[in-house]
């Protein structure tokens, strides 16, 4: 528990993003982070998988991975842009993730677009070109097939994913508040070990935070 060791564990950018030094960030010139997002260790963000034309035409301007504000990527999350074969060659398409999105441990995200206020559980697979609209909860272990569209205010679960519940209208506010709290608390307690503890502490003392989905 030496302090010097723990201080350097995360890189903090000007806009308040915290990126673990143990995270694998490839092609960082193609990754846009909106600010105050957190990337935990062992995450993989594949910014290097971009459209070949964008590199030659407009240089680093075109982002292949666009991540918004107040997002929280837990351990081992893989973010990789979707690809398909277009006119005989393999083409990667840009990927966009909105604001206040939390992604659980070891989930693989190949979606084309994820809206804001989305909560993805752990060990999920979000297939290529899937679209998650705003206010969506993906329960743990869900497999969302490629090119699926999840409508707003849905709770999805299962393999393949199916809509199992509807979210109340307050979800956007709740998710926003949660994301902000996680960010502030994480900032204070950004030590090496127990991320889970930090996450749990957000909810433990808050009786008003209870938010049932299951």
């Amino acid at each position, binding site marked *: 528990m030496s302090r010097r060791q723990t201080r350097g564990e995360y890189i903090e950018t000007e806009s308040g993003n915290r990126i673990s030094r143990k995270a694998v960030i490839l092609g960082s010139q193609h990754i846009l982070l909106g600010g105050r997002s957190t990337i935990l260790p062992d995450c993989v963000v594949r910014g290097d998988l971009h459209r070949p034309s964008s590199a030659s035409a407009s240089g680093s301007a075109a982002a292949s991975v666009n991540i918004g504000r107040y997002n929280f990527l837990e351990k081992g999350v893989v973010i990789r842009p*979707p690809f398909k074969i277009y006119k005989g060659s393999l083409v990667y*398409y*840009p*990927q*966009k993730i*909105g604001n206040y999105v939390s992604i659980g441990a070891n989930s693989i995200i190949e979606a*084309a*677009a*994820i*809206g*804001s206020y989305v909560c993805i559980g752990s060990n999920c697979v979000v*297939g290529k*070109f899937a*679209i998650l*609209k*705003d*206010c969506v909860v993906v329960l743990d272990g869900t*497999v969302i*097939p*490629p*090119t*699926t*569209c*999840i*409508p*707003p*205010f*849905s709770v999805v679960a299962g393999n*393949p994913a*199916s*809509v199992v519940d509807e979210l*109340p*209208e*307050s*979800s*956007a*506010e*709740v998710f926003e*508040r949660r994301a*902000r*709290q996680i960010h*502030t*608390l994480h900032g204070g307690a950004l030590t090496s070990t127990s991320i889970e503890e930090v996450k749990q502490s957000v*909810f*433990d*003392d*808050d*009786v*008003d935070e*209870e*938010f*049932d989905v*299951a």
Partner: protein
Amino acid sequence: MMATRYPLLRIHCPCAEPITDGQDNEVEAPTTSGSPDTGLDKTANLELPPTIDNPFALHALNSLYFCDVCLVLRCERCVVEEVVQTYCPACLHVYSADTTAAGNEPSRVTRKGRGDDATFCTRNCLQCPLCFTSLTMFATTASEGSEVPATVYLQCSHCSWDSRHTDRSLIFSKHSSLYQQVRKLSAQRAIDDESETHDTPATSFGALSQFYQRLYESVETEEAESDTSAPPSPMFSKRVSRSLETIRFLKSHYSKQGGPLSTPSPAITPSSVLGVLGRAGGVSNQKTREHAEKEKERCVSYIDEEAEIEKVSRMGGMTSLDETPTLSQQRANPFVRPTRSSDMLPLPTRLRTRRAKRCRACRHILVRPDVSSRKVSTSSSASASVAGSTSTVATAFRINLLSKNYIPTLRLTYLPATSPAQSSSPYQAGFIPHITYSFALTLFNPLYEPIKVTLASPPRTPKHGHSITFLTPSFDIGANIEDDWDLQAVTSLRRKFADLKMSGIANISASSESARTGPNLGILDRGRNWTSVIFEIVPANERSSEVEVPLFVSFAYEAEVEKDFGSGGRSGESADDGLFDKEQREVAFWSVLKIGRVIA
């Protein structure tokens, strides 16, 4: 099932209770003159609502609405829903939208299409019959020179179901309105499979409506006859009168729907049903009995033996259970009744709705989605699968009266005592009987007016008899000024309570002498729009009983309401006050705090 996470707050909605005068008061008291009295009465008597233990009467704060006319909380069950928009969940195309303005008039939804067309997506959104994933459309390019034209087939991206590999190799000639093509196919198949007993939605509906029409008429004539003759057995008459009610309702219902008529299946006729009814009721009617016998014979001959044999032989050739559809797959295909998985057709996609919610008592709108905004969907041009949808659904709301913006939110913090047995948090570790546990209950005021809060709870919990003590039943909370109250307060609180945990509650209350004396007794701390009060629990010696505290919260504030300029010259006199009048308001509700379990 996940274990309950403590602590937990549930707010009680009285809508499940039998209607009493209290309920009526709530309904009739939008002018708030009556509500403070009821609140005070409840505090004085502190009568627990009878449904406080019912799980369906307890709601999370986030799923509740607040009617600012009735000044009561509204749960999911005491709101009226009305459809504002229907859209396809797969392509997000909006099928119908409410055209009325934001006013309080009932919504008028313009629907395109009738019947099936109003419930299913009529574009190319089809679902896999095996796994219900939305299917992807592929086109085979017409190779020049060959006689094969360009065709379209469907593939499931999850289970790799392929429309070309089904029983009849589904290949579509054009890539638009696949829904119509599949519907035509399924109707055709139904006729092919069972020439006599075809059971498509349209025909069966027509048969039903015609059947009930005739039943209704024949019953009416019978009724007229029986009036003159001797009264039938009481049992029979009761039954007939009840079924008559049903039939009348159905008739009016069907005549409104106006489904397509076709010949009813020959097995059942109105008179045959009446015959059965009559026999059951003990009325011997020679004519109806004869008729029933005849009908029975026809029922037997109605079974197509050859088709059944063919079905059996087909199933005999199956090698695994996977070749038969599962129950859920069969249920999705009710009119085709496939016996083999490869028989199943792609399914249409059901539309989803966005709904406005109104207070059941005063019809005031609580939630209204904003359908007018043509918000550009978050998906970029990369999403080829949804490209081309002209109007997509937005998630914004025009009106959203959420309860957490109108009632104080509660936060519970454990204050550990100095004794080592209580050092760990009792939420997970559990409570030890006969030891006093102290908690800080922090109330945040989301309103822009200062409020006066009164807390009340029974001295002992009704179920298990844990004793509860609130040191400060009544206190004030300042107004909420800034929007980010939440976070600042929470962080400062958290720091404070972290200190508390270090030093123990005894030291703190000793140091802040004001908490012990004077009007601030029991108030741990207060901020701009929050106040923390101490309450104590002594758990009873009842093994593994849940520690839950019924808590009555009532708060009063002076609200500024817009003056009614319509009512004469009152406005001129009080010009200095501006446009607003002061009005005393009081809101009260029951809640249940679930804190943990007793360990023995």
